């Protein structure tokens, strides 16, 4: 019996959330870890929020109820905060700090929250917050599109999920587009190191 671990990933359409989920699920399959995953992506191309849920271990439900995520990974800080209802006081939260304000902010129909306030709120309400600029790190890795792999690296570093670093690396090698593999692996390592350094500090 393997106790279920529940992961929610939230992102803005186009940030590569579904690929990151796919890589994790393939790593789980290759490691013999039961995996169920669900995604809501009907309007993804139209700039809405894309959410995926991954349940590792012995559970049949592919979705995760409010307050039942063990880990929340957010690719955009305001979306991480919006998804905080999926967490409980024991949850671990990992977030990118580079904002992508929705157009409602441009037309004066909303105010984008202060980045520091976002972190303070999440930190106060959950077990751990790992927050850094994953977008900058993706650029450093050689691909603006590798934000997903940076955050995947940070997630795997926490060792909360029953998948090994090696199995994820190998899933990146076999399941992401060949021309992006070097940048993706680099991004994964940078994210892994970032989480390690944050944990040590």
């Amino acid at each position, binding site marked *: 019996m393997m106790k*279920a671990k529940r992961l929610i990933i939230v992102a*803005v359409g186009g940030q590569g959330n579904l690929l990151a989920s*796919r890589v994790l*699920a*393939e790593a789980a*399959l290759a490691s013999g870890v*039961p*995996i*169920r*995953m*669900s*995604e*809501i*992506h*009907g*309007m993804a*191309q*139209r*700039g*809405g*929020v894309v959410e995926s849920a991954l349940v590792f271990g*012995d*559970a*049949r*439900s*592919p*979705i*995760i*109820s*409010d*307050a*039942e995520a063990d880990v929340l990974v957010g690719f955009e800080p*305001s*979306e991480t*905060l*919006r998804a*905080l*209802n999926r*967490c*409980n*006081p*024991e949850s671990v939260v990992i977030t990118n700090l580079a904002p992508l*304000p*929705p*157009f*409602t*902010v*441009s*037309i004066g*129909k*909303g*105010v*984008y*929250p202060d980045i520091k*306030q976002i972190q303070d*709120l999440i930190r106060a*309400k*959950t077990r751990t917050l790992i927050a850094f600029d994953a977008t900058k790190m993706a650029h450093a890795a050689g691909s*603006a599109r590798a934000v997903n792999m940076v955050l995947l690296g940070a997630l795997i570093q926490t060792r909360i999920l029953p998948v090994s670093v090696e199995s994820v690396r190998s899933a990146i090698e076999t399941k992401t587009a060949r021309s992006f593999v070097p940048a993706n692996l680099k991004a994964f390592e940078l994210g892994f190191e970032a989480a390690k350094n944050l944990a040590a500090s």
Partner: protein
Amino acid sequence: MHKLLADQPGQKMLLLGNEAIARGALESGVAVATTYPGTPSSEISMNFFQISQESDLYFEYSTNEKVALEVAAAAANCGVRSMCVMKHVGMNVAADALMTLAYVGVKGALVIVTADDPFMFSSQNEQDNRYYAKFGGLPMLEPSDSSEARQMTAEAFELSEKLGEPVILRTTTRLNHSTGAVTLGPMQKIKTRGEFVRNPLRYVTVPAVSRKLHARLLENLASARQISETSAFNFTKGEGAWGIICNGVSYNYVCDALLDLGLEQRIRILRIGFSHPLPEDLIVSFLKTSEKVLVVEEGEPYMEEAVKAAAQQAKLTLDIQGKSDTLFSRLYEFDPAMVREKIAGYFNVPYTPPQRIDLSDVPELPARPPSLCPGCPHRATFYAVRKAAAGLDIMCPNDIGCYTLGFMPPLSMGDFLICMGSSVGTSCGFSKVSGKKVVAFIGDSTFFHSGIPGLINAVFNQHDFTLVILDNGITAMTGHQPNPGVDMEKLNLKGYGRVSIEAVVRSLGVGQVSVIRPLNVKKSIEAIRKALDFKGVSVVISKHLCPLFANSFRKSTARPFYVSDRCRNHRNCVNDLACPAFFISEGRVKINSALCTGCSLCAQVCPENAILPQKADS
């Protein structure tokens, strides 16, 4: 080779529910597959479309679900294994064919997939299509996960041929869009040619024939009921004096709840997978050994009503509950915690709810609603109509597609919408009685699907409105599927014709027809103004390729725009267009060059001509 064609029985693969359904069909040797695309079913047919280009599978995107079902029904009646795929509301369109096809039956297998959408993630209603199986008298299977979706699809083909009836495979969004490990089965050889044996007294449904066919259907239904009684898809699990009857994705939530609540030794589950006809004997024997029973099903009380009726018939008086104010709702979809709580409540066992976080001090976050993409030609058309109609009291029936999003401010072009094609039909009624100038919007694919009859009606009955056909050269909303207006040569695909929307509209005798290029703003406004002035039915065809689709076969050479020093901060661009490429920085409008497609719409709207293309070397 397409991954779903892998002839490696026993191999484990991660598959989306929709991929698992496609795989199950391929393993059964499906030779003809048809569809009209619709979320959450679209990936089934997307895979068939790709696979048909490298195998003997014949696949088509039909003009609508009724036509799709007729094509598949004919193939099946020649003995060729067929599948027809649609979203739940598509079944309403196909229902005319379905109800009598059930009388006629099939020779080769026909499996009809209906993808229901509880919670309406991407639909206009959350109707429960299990009632179509009951309504039509057809067998129905409902899988709980990807692995079972493959297995049940394959079984549906066998069942269909055995009974000589189409079989409905009913799914919900959480099945279609969930991924799990699937063990592949062996691939069967595909038979692409069949034979139609003429027998008018069997296949031509005049009253005298149909009277016999209805009796035949009821006999088949009785046989199906016997199969359902012993089907492996209807099984019991666990032990105990209490019972839960469940189906589809609810089964997963029930299993997890019993594990979490430690009730696996106290509650037995009856999982219904062959859900029409229901296995009444099996249900009665389950009831007889239960003290009380909870029915867990999303949507309508389809099983609950049947279970209660069966109990009454068997003179059983145990408590049976399902839908009620304190238990399950008919609204939306279920989730694991909610099902756990209701089970604990009904059986009166201790339950600790998940520990929620107090979010009362979280500031209100800016909404991120879906919006038309940067460079979307619909935005330009909506803007031009708004300008052309300035001073007129207009109302705008809209239709189903990306352009439905035009109903949101600031474009605010969408006042009424009920179903595919309804923009045209309702315009006839609105223009007759509302006293407003009616301007309706419909997309290219939706026009072919069901807009044409409404337009013919408008011409014949001399209605008075303007129909704007938003022709972006593809079925964009559901993921860029072809439609009869698409230039298939652009996709390097041979063997297709092409229907001109303009030729169709002109041939119907529409009084005034114009074709605009929406990104030529000034000319578009002029043309729309003329159309609005016309007394009678006028049509404006607004032609510009969906930029996401265009990007898939040619790289855009347009340069992104930027806001120059000439900007005097009127903000007409942001306020009138709401393009997601705009952002405000230090009180000034800026354009995100990574998002800007260089469509030039905002540059034409700016009163200061302050928005300019970036220099080639910048």
